[in-house]
């Protein structure tokens, strides 16, 4: 045993003589940090770094099986899901790792912003961080494309149509993005290269520089209200603080980073085990039209914004908003490089973060739950509840067939089945009189198309007769009081009991 120890010592000495890494590593490990920054608020950056390595590790394992060709990609993902032991778990780890990474990077950014950590002398650290965020989102999008299912296919289509709106060079950019005029094998190779070589390479380099600057410039001290940053005095003040009230990075602050990163990795594993991998959904074949593509979670808010924007606003918004957003983020450390760091005295900063978070949450919620699309197969697959057909007249029954065959159900549900684009029809007769129903069917209105030209008069009559039966047993259908009065007035007096 002592012999082995001595041999190991000799090998270490041989290596150290040549590499000379001991001193810089010792410097980095033992460099003093302000005591109050050894806080649970300072663990997000290291967690993002840990997740980056989880993604690289799982990504390499996935690349051993994945085939980046338009004909094989979808099949190779199914091989991973079903034929390779725990292949599905590996895919799930990579997918959930990506979700966690985007989330942690955003939280890290919000924390850095609220703690004023982007101010002098850490401007470049922030700017690199902005690029790291963009690269993380780029990885998320290109990863979704590599899944090469229907969501990936149509997501690419939307991406291409966004790019095509750039004035003058839009067509050329689409060609560059897709590797040709259409989504094909070249597109997938292109995104594989981006996802596996280009972006991860740039990301690793940026992440190391980012960490390098954190080590060289020191971890941001806990912001105190009234302690203003000034270019002339900050560095001296910081050094004084770390020497008077500091502790070595390891183990003083490091153990919290370790514990939090471990917890995040465990959370990724639990999510992967419980929720499983993402897709792949249906085959990426544009001739299959039975599909409702949706972007992944972190791009749902864009999907919602684009759905709600008036058409005239789309192109300006798509082209200006992202550039403006990135420009603001990049300009921030130059605009506010000195002054107050504490969020207690930066109400605008707090409001900005809160507003962005609330908007993002609301838009994501809307993107998840709003029934944007009709259920295109409801007309032929969702029966009308039997109780609604019980004791119908022949004409109303024929109207129920018209309702199905003319695909009204794709947008209107009955008994909880069918589309949700329009209102449910369960008690439509209590809301509209027969004349109003007839008028609505013929002329449409709001989001509803006019069916006057697609239905014959008997079809309209039968349909409205059926709709008139859709009311609860204890609630009579709506009627027009004026019409009712006219009918009563026309009746000979004395006929009433």
């Amino acid at each position, binding site marked *: 045993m002592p012999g082995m120890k001595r041999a190991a010592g000799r090998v270490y000495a041989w290596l150290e003589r040549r590499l000379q890494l001991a001193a810089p590593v010792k410097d980095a490990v033992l460099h003093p940090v302000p005591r109050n920054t050894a806080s649970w608020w300072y663990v997000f950056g290291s967690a993002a770094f840990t997740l980056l390595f989880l993604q690289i590790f799982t990504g390499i394992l996935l690349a051993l099986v994945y085939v980046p060709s338009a004909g094989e990609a979808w099949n190779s993902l199914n091989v991973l899901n079903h034929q390779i032991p725990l292949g599905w778990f590996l895919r799930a780890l990579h997918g959930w790792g990506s979700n966690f990474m985007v989330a942690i990077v955003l939280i890290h950014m919000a924390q850095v912003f609220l703690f004023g950590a982007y101010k002098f002398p850490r401007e470049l650290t922030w700017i690199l961080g902005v690029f790291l965020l963009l690269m993380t989102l780029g990885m998320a999008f290109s990863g979704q494309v590599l899944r090469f299912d229907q969501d990936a296919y149509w997501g690419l289509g939307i991406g291409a149509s966004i790019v095509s709106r750039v004035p003058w060079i839009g067509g050329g950019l689409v060609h560059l993005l897709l590797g040709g005029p259409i989504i094909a094998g070249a597109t997938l190779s292109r995104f594989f290269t981006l996802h596996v070589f280009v972006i991860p390479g740039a990301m690793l380099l940026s992440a190391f520089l980012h960490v390098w600057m954190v080590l060289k410039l020191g971890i941001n001290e806990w912001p105190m209200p009234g302690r203003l940053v000034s270019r002339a005095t900050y560095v001296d003040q910081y050094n004084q603080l770390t020497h008077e009230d500091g502790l070595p990075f390891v183990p003083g602050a490091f153990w919290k980073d370790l514990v939090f990163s471990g917890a995040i990795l465990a959370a990724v594993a639990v999510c992967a085990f419980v929720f*499983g991998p993402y897709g*792949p959904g249906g085959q990426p074949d544009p001739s*299959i039209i039975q599909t409702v593509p949706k972007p992944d979670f972190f791009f749902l808010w864009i999907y919602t914004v684009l759905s709600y924007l008036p058409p005239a606003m789309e192109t300006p918004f798509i082209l200006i908003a992202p550039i403006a957003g990135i420009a603001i983020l990049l300009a921030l450390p130059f605009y506010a490089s000195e002054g107050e760091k504490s969020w207690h005295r930066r109400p605008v900063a707090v409001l900005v973060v809160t507003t962005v978070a609330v908007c993002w949450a609301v838009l994501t919620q809307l993107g998840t739950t709003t029934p944007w699309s009709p259920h295109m197969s409801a007309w*032929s697959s969702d029966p009308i509840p039997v109780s609604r057909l019980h004791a119908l007249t*022949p*004409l109303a*029954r024929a109207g129920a067939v018209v309702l199905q*065959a003319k695909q009204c159900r794709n947008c209107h549900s009955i008994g909880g089945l069918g589309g949700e684009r329009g209102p449910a029809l369960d008690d439509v007769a209590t809301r509209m009189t027969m004349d109003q129903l007839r008028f609505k069917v013929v002329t449409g209105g709001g989001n509803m198309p006019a069916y006057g030209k697609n239905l014959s008069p008997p*079809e309209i009559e*039968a349909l409205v007769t059926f709709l008139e039966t859709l009311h609860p047993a204890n609630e009579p259908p709506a009627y027009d009081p004026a019409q009712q009065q006219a009918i009563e007035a026309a009746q000979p007096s004395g006929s009433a009991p």
Partner: protein
Amino acid sequence: MRCVAVGLAAWLAVILAGCRLAPGHPPDPDSRPDQVLDFATLYDQNCAACHGRNGQNGPAIDLGNPEYQALIDDASLRKWIANGMPGTEMPAFAQSAGGMLTDAQVDVLVAGMRKAWRAQDAFAGAAPPAYAPAAAGNAGDAQRGQQTYQVRCAGCHKAGGEDIASSTYLSLVGGQALRSIIIAGRPDIGQPDWQHDAPGGKAVTPLSAQDVDDIVTYLGTLRSAATTTVSAQGGGK
């Protein structure tokens, strides 16, 4: 140390063996919609909305009625599914006619309905009128049909809610559909078959083939020319 190793190995074995049972284990991949060849799935996706689950209690004719299945031949059933039924709301489902189903899928639907709903000796020995009229175009006698209708049908289908002798209703139901319902009935909603077509569902004699021809011809004359024309325009999908 050995305990830890054994425990670890056992844990790994459970993970490997039980990974199919993990809540996150992915389901089998979706097959292409045009490669689905399971009758129950195809029926539920394409037919159940109008003809009802299990071929019963839908607004359109009950395909699960054994008498209907015994009455109609494979070729006709296939024709209506593939190309739709003129004069009714039944759309064409075959890709060749603008629908979404392949020929193989239409075959699965026909064979599946036969297997699920055709019963041995559905008519209990009786011989019903033929599925299609004897002469093309329902060449019955309208006047005789009106008399038969008054005697055999009008008892229930009198003016008011149950009236079927209105041009509006008749514009939506083709001659062949009327014929099928008159002969096979609709047991799911209590409509009698040709043997019982009479007030109260108690007939002394079944309707003859001639009677059915006559009634369908009579009802055909009630479709006004105007509504039929519009229906032909608007009804085509």
